[in-house]
């Protein structure tokens, strides 16, 4: 019995030693080392067979080297991710603490208020369509929320939104010490009188879609509107006079004065 144990243990030790030397040898590239598949479009795999509904059987040996992706049949049908139901009339009552936490998270993703937020997830920056897939209309998935773009007319997303570090450099500490404090995020607009709709306390340039933050299913927690069913926001909430600067004009565009026929002065009518 003890002999069997000895033979077994010596085999284990021998394998460990061999494994150790292979491991420290420079000859074994890390799987991550030369990763050619990272940018390969899964749909371009030619392993799909002619009958789009058939998936070819593989031997176990081939599984590791085979790219697996959606079948042709699945690719051919446009897919919508199932989205949770959104009730427009759910009462929105965030507590002050929730609002605070939410605005802290928001601030942590910007260099200063008004700066473009960073991209808080990995991207493979191959084209802008990839951003639009989730961010043009917003998506909720697995507890995560893709916010809605409020300036779809501006493509080339990473020109302003800084992505995460490239994969090989993500462990580098890139913290920057800075004493810079930008302007705080505005909390609320001005009201003409108690009960009046507040003005918009930020500029509207690139934020034309109010629902991107303030309502709908993908708004920012703590910033949601209490009445998202009213969709024409600027009908009641006036844009900021100081932040929404239009080119100055000496002539305020107005309709021409009405051409009202008036009786002649001095013809006996009271003035």
């Amino acid at each position, binding site marked *: 019995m003890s002999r069997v144990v000895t033979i077994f243990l010596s085999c284990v030790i021998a394998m460990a030693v061999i494994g150790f030397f292979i491991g420290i040898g420079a000859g074994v590239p890390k799987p991550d080392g030369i990763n050619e598949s990272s940018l390969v479009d899964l749909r371009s795999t030619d392993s799909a067979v002619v009958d789009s509904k058939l998936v070819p059987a593989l031997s176990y040996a081939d599984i590791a080297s085979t790219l697996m992706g959606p079948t042709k049949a699945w690719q051919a049908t446009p897919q919508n991710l199932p989205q949770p139901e959104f009730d427009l009339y759910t009462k929105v009552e965030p507590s002050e603490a929730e609002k605070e936490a939410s605005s802290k998270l928001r601030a942590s993703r910007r260099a200063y208020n008004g700066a473009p937020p960073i991209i808080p997830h990995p991207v493979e920056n191959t084209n802008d369509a990839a951003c639009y897939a989730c961010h043009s209309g917003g998506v909720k998935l697995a507890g995560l929320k893709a916010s809605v773009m409020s300036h779809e007319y501006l493509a080339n997303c990473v020109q302003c939104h800084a992505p995460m570090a490239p994969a*090989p450099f993500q462990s580098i500490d890139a913290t920057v010490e800075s004493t810079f404090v930008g302007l705080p995020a505005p909390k609320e607009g001005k009201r003409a009188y108690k009960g009046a709709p507040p003005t918009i306390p930020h500029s509207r340039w690139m934020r034309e879609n109010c629902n991107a933050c303030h309502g709908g299913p993908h708004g920012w927690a703590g910033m949601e509107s209490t009445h998202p069913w009213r969709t024409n926001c600027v009908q009641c909430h006036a844009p900021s006079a100081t932040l929404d600067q239009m080119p100055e004009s000496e002539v305020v565009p107005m309709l021409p004065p009405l051409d009202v026929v008036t009786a002649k002065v001095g013809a006996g009518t009271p003035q």
Partner: protein
Amino acid sequence: MIANDSYDKSFVEKHCNFRGAEADTPTLQGEAISEEEFRKRIAKYTPEHVEELSGVPAEKSRMLGELFGNHDIRITSLWCMGMNQHTMGTAINSLVHGVHLLSGHFGRPGDAPTSLTGQPSACGTVREVGTLAHALPGGRVVAKPEHREQCEEFWNLRPGSISDLPGYHTVKMFEQFTKPTAEGGDITTLFVQVTNPGQTLPNLNALFNDKKGLEDKFLIVSDVYPTATTQLADLILPAALWVEKNGMFGNSERRTQQWFKMVDPPGEARDDCWMTIAIAHKLFEMGHEGMQDKNGEFIFAIKDSDGREIPIWQFEHYYDTNVDKHLFEEYRLFSTMKHKNLAPYDEYVTARGLRWPVVQQDDGSWRETRYRFSEFDDPFVTKGQEFEFYHSSSNDGRAQIWFHEYAPPPEVPDDDYPMWLCTGRVLEHWHTGTLTRRLSPLNRAMPTAYIEMNSEDAKAANIRQGEKVVIESRRGTCELPVWIDGRGRPPRGTVFVPFFDETKLINNCTLEAHDPFSKQPDFKKCAVRVVKKSEGKVPS
């Protein structure tokens, strides 16, 4: 296009000349050649021959030829430093313009070539204002006596006070500064403003680092943050950022823009312009002749409405008046000779930038020019000409279609240094990163310089993703982490390294060989080798 007979004959006949470099000593102007001569010289550069020289597939050259031969489409060619930073940079630029001229793809909206070099304020305050060593404002050069005379008149200087001898260009200037005085290094004091040569010069070991330990060399650096250049500075002057001072700049679009100071600079930081005036006034007080006009007054003297001089060299009085406005109104005088007319300062205050030539209209308003040299928009084009390249180097309103012979690169990979090195920028960081590396979101997005390699090259050298390697050239070394098949996916045999990271100075390796005319160093190609850290030398 010539072989297909698809070039724009009428455009070439009406608006172009042919030009080639002189055989003995080539100059920027070159010499006129006939169309016959042009055809003869270019004949040997068939797409196949070009493929042999450059590796660009012949079919791609043919495809471009067919594209340019089609006059129904419009073609805009845009490029950055990838074309300019070569020993043949000027030649490449004139050849690309030549392709556009030959094909008539010029002067219609959307149909022109443009080099995207107009970072504020490379165009406005370098080329237009004439801060280069051989230049004077408004397209003038020190070599021409009439140009010197005009400047002396505008500036009220003694006749003959402007030297006809051009100063040193940048590479030569740093050579002379870092060379000991005893060995002929005749520059002893250097004042660096708004640039970071300690990081951006090529071959830093030869052109910058040698300053260390030279007692009689004095380096003054004005900057907003500590930089690679301030490391060797003998005097650091804290500078105000652009929002902390009044300013004016011009971009390559020809647009001149004005802004007012928005916040006060912190601590003792001051406007660069004030520093220049303060130093000039100190020299004036010390009796330096160059700081006096012909009446013996200070050259930057500004007087108030009562004729009393405002002491703008004292910072507390600098903003008593708008110094920019005084300087700009004086500079405007220079702009009309080459028909790059500028509007009065106050026009730029209300406009959102104006593109020169800005010409006053009959109603007193000022009109900018969107399309230069095209009759439909440029008021200086003779009526009926359609296009007129006024002030062209041949003085006949015609543009030059250049021919240049192929010239081999100054350094080519060999057995010792088998790889091509190309350097450049990344999206996240502006140039040397003095500002952008101090911003968390940007620094996190691109936390380090890297060496980008082709996966086959990495495999052959047994180099892994993220591994630190040493890149070596004949001039220096640099240690960098590897990014295999990164953004640029470099072809086999080439590596790319960005230059923004002051902790990993790739310009220790680059080559100081430069273009004979633009003086741009060849940052885009030199020979290097990449070795695993365990096998490499200790980086300098």
